Structures are given as structure tokens and as C-alpha cells.
């Protein structure tokens, strides 16, 4: 069965989630991944959106993290002061999802500017909650398509800290969470090497050559000693994604 890179990314991200975990969800692929996990191996996954919806079970595909369908039938609605103080800063979020225009060798993510901050070439949206998710969630999973532009040696601006920031580590800086332990791309998975804080290739998707991954990364990418094998999407996973979760292909286009 053929499948698109977006479908593979949603499936791989879903498999990262364990049943019963509390997840801070973003819109798009992270939302699809969470709902795919709930429909398969993690029915008790608890979804929290930074908008304040806790335990959401949307009856339609939400088009934003503030979609009304995330409220109706949810377990709780929190004001945003509680979301950030009592849930995130309190340490209640086990997994956070992040995406970004740039992810660098040490897992730092940039969603602020391309170029200089004061006179940017491209002005991106900014942090939103990403800075604090990267700091507080017990672990985060980043999702991004490989390209030299998207994976530079060092990001232009650190919006969400990774594992080494200007030479300093997370622990030294007092960050509670473990940071972006995995990066799910369209060709394979990168994982952090604990001592160096550097992202290494840990798995290639079926049929992808190592050189294809290296071509999309702006630093000399090292590989973990043994690469994990990743199964392609199952028929059931593809069925759920295509027929149930995103039948209009809003987020699964490519």
C-alpha cells in the first residue's frame, strides 16, 4: 500500500505516544498523530490544548487549537493562566509537540525570524507557547520535513531551546523537561545523543537511503550505532487517517 510522507510522519509520531500520557497538542499533524494513537494503541491518551481545552474529544477535525469542537464534550476548560502555570509549569505535561521553520544540530527550534531579529528576511509567527513547552514538557517530539534550509547547523534565533544553547546544556540552565528527544521527519527519525546533545539519525523509513537524509541536513549528520527499523503504516492506520481523521486531506495533502 502506498502512502504519503505526511501520512508516515503522522503514523510515526502516533507511535511515540504511550497510553495514558498527558499530551500538549498542536494543530495539524500532531493533532492527527494524537487522535490516531487514541484510536489505536493509546485510548486513554489525554489531550490538552494551550487554548485551555483539557481531555478534548473533538467530533470534527479542529482547524485551530481554539476550535469550538475542542471544548464541547471536553473534561475541563482552563483559563490560559492555569494552562501555563498549573498544567505546564507545574510539570503535568508529559509530551509536547513542536514544529518549526528551522531545527538545528542540537534540537534548537526557530519559529521567530529568518535572518536578523531587528531586520528579518522572513518574519515567522514567534513562540506562542513553544518556548515554555520546550522547557517544561517532560519530553517533546518535533515534526518537520527535511531540507537544508529547515535543518541548519545553527538556527538564526532560538525560540524553543533544544539540548545545547550557545554551549550550555539544559540541566545547567535549569530546565525541568528533557527537551526534543526525537525529531520525526519525512525520511527518518532523529534522536538526541544524551552526552553531546546532538541529533543523530536513529531510524530510516522503509526504502529511504541514508544519503537522502544527509542531503536534507545542514551539518555532518552522524548515525546511531544501530538504526531502528520502522514499519510502514498499517492498513488500519491509513484507513483511520484517510477515512476518519482527515477525510478532506486538510493536513495529509503531501
Amino acid at each position, binding site marked *: 500500500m502506498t502512502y504519503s510522507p505526511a501520512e508516515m510522519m503522522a503514523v510515526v509520531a502516533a507511535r511515540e505516544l504511550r497510553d495514558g500520557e498527558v499530551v500538549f497538542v498542536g*494543530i*495539524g499533524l500532531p493533532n492527527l498523530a494524537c487522535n490516531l494513537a487514541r484510536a489505536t494503541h493509546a485510548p486513554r491518551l489525554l489531550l490538552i490544548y*494551550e*487554548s*485551555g*481545552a483539557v481531555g478534548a474529544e473533538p467530533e470534527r477535525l479542529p*482547524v*485551530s*487549537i*481554539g*476550535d*469550538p469542537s475542542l*471544548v*464541547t464534550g471536553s473534561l475541563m*476548560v*482552563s*483559563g*490560559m*493562566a492555569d494552562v*501555563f*502555570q498549573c498544567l*505546564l*509549569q507545574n510539570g503535568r505535561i508529559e509530551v509536547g509537540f513542536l514544529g518549526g521553520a528551522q531545527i538545528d544540530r542540537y534540537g534548537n527550534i526557530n519559529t*521567530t525570524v529568518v535572518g536578523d*531579529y531587528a*531586520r*528579518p*528576511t*522572513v*518574519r515567522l*509567527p*514567534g*513562540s*506562542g*507557547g*513553544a*518556548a*515554555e513547552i520546550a*522547557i*517544561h514538557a517532560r519530553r517533546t517530539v518535533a515534526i518537520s520535513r527535511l531540507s537544508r534550509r529547515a535543518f541548519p547547523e545553527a538556527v538564526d*534565533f*532560538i*525560540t*524553543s*531551546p533544544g539540548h545545547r*544553547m550557545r554551549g*550550555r546544556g*539544559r540541566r545547567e*540552565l*535549569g*530546565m*525541568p523537561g528533557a527537551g526534543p528527544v526525537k525529531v520525526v521527519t519525512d525520511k527518518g527519525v532523529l534522536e538526541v545523543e544524551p552526552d553531546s546533545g546532538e541529533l543523530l539519525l536513529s531510524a530510516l523509513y522503509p526504502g529511504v537511503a541514508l544519503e537522502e537524509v544527509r542531503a536534507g541536513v545542514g551539518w555532518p549528520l552522524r548515525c546511531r550505532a544501530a538504526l531502528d527499523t520502522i514499519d510502514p503504516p498499517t492498513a488500519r492506520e491509513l484507513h483511520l487517517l484517510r477515512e476518519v481523521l482527515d477525510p478532506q486531506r486538510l493536513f495529509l495533502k503531501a
Partner: protein
Amino acid sequence: MREAVAAHVHDGDTVVIEGFTHLICFAAGHEIIRQRRRELTLCRLTPDLIYDQMIAAGCARKLVFSWAGNPGAGSLHAFRRAVERKGGGPLELEEYSHFGMVARLCAGAARLPFWTLRDYMGTDLPAANPSIRTIECPYTGEVLATVPALNPDVTIVHAQRADAEGNAQIWGLLGVQKEAAFASRRVIVVVEELVDQSVIRGDPNRTLIPGLAVDAVVVEPWGAHPSYAQGYYDRDNEFYVGWEEISRDPAALERYLEAMVYGVPDRTGYVEKCGDLERLRAGSRVCAGVNYGY
């Protein structure tokens, strides 16, 4: 609305129109554009389409924010043109993360000069914004981040309903509206429905903002369109998606403002010109009441 904006929003003011996706008061933003307010410092977590329009219309001197995108649909191009100096601007920026903006309003609401949070270590945000500072805990010696209080001149909050004194009830997403209202010197509450005070008193736990903090109450059905009001109408997602094309082209944006803002006298005119908004009318999912007896 005309009187409320005339009385409470002045040139040079620091203005907050809050509402996280939910209950964004476009009616107030449009009236501010129509009254050609200038030199405003616009503050919002997510500038959204409403501030993109206000920036395009020349109302803003400065933007204080934490996420400037078109949620789920693309960019805010008037904002980007101003920041990227591609025909817009200049526009001064003061940038935080969501938590930082929330914390600034918490401090403002509590009338404290700052708020403490565990944030920003390892990020480049403090270098970009010198108002992000640190403080040492007097018990543990830990160094924590601080942000300064935000006390706007005027905050505009859209609510599902309020009584004539401004006791306002909101359900669904609550955002930072309560904090923004308490932080503000003046508060305008805009509602879908004006209700008898007995409705408010029937369910006092539902009240988010008390009338004692409110300076003006404006009744403006559909006042949050193209944003949404839980239980009243859904988000006009087509408009949000379509904004990408409008805002990308300065001429198209100008035509939009001419037609839908300057070209109508008030919100009623806007609603009429929008045509069939009934397609967005909310379905019925009425919850059960609870017993306040004793």
C-alpha cells in the same frame, strides 16, 4: 459601539482586544479603524486578523504579542510587510511567548509591577526584549524569569452575555480575558446578548468579569465574526483561509477595508453586507443546570 470607542479609546492608547481564537471582538476593531485612531500600542497574544487589519489601516505604532500568524491558514501579511519593511511600517515590536503575555496580564490584574515565571532560559527572547529579566528567589536562591505588568488603557472583551451593569458571563475558551479586564484602566464589554440581571444571578459561578470593573456595555450580535462565540455561531473558517490572499495584496486589503469597514456605518451594516451568516449559527448542545439551593 460608536459611543463606547469614542469615549474610551484615544489616540496613543495601549489597547487590548483579547480572546484566544474564541470571542475576538472584530466589531470593536472595525469601529476603531472607522474612527481612525492612531499611534495605538496594540497588545494581544495572537494579533490575528483583527490586528492585521488595524495595522494595515494605520492605527498601530507598536505591537506587543506572542504569536503572529493566521491560525491554521497562513501569515498576517500586513504585519509581515511592516516588520520586514516591505512597504509597511514602521511598526515597533515587543515580543514575548504566550506564557510571558499571560504573566504580564496576571501581574497587571493583581496590580503588581511584575510576575515571576520559570521560562526563557536558553532562548534568544530576552536578548530581543530587554523587558524580560530575572529575579532571585528569597528562599531558594534560584534565578527565575520576570516580565513587567501590562496595564492597558483600555481592554475590549467580547462575551456571550452580560447584564446592563456589565456583569459578563463567558463559557467555552476563557483565554486571558479576566486578567486583561482587571489589568485595564477602562473596560468595554461587548455582548451577543444583553440579559436581565436575574439571568446572571441565576448562575453566579459563570460570571467571568464583574460589572464593577466595566465602563461600557455594548450589544453587538455577531460582533466576533469571523471569530466565533460558543453556543452562538461557529468560526468563519473560509474567511480565515481567504484572508491569506486578501492580506498578501495591499490593494486587496485596502479594498476589503473600504467595503467592509469604512463602507459600512456600523456592525449592523457589516452583518448585512456579509450576507448569509446563518450558515454559521450554532447547533444546540445545552448543558444541564446545577442546584444553587441551600
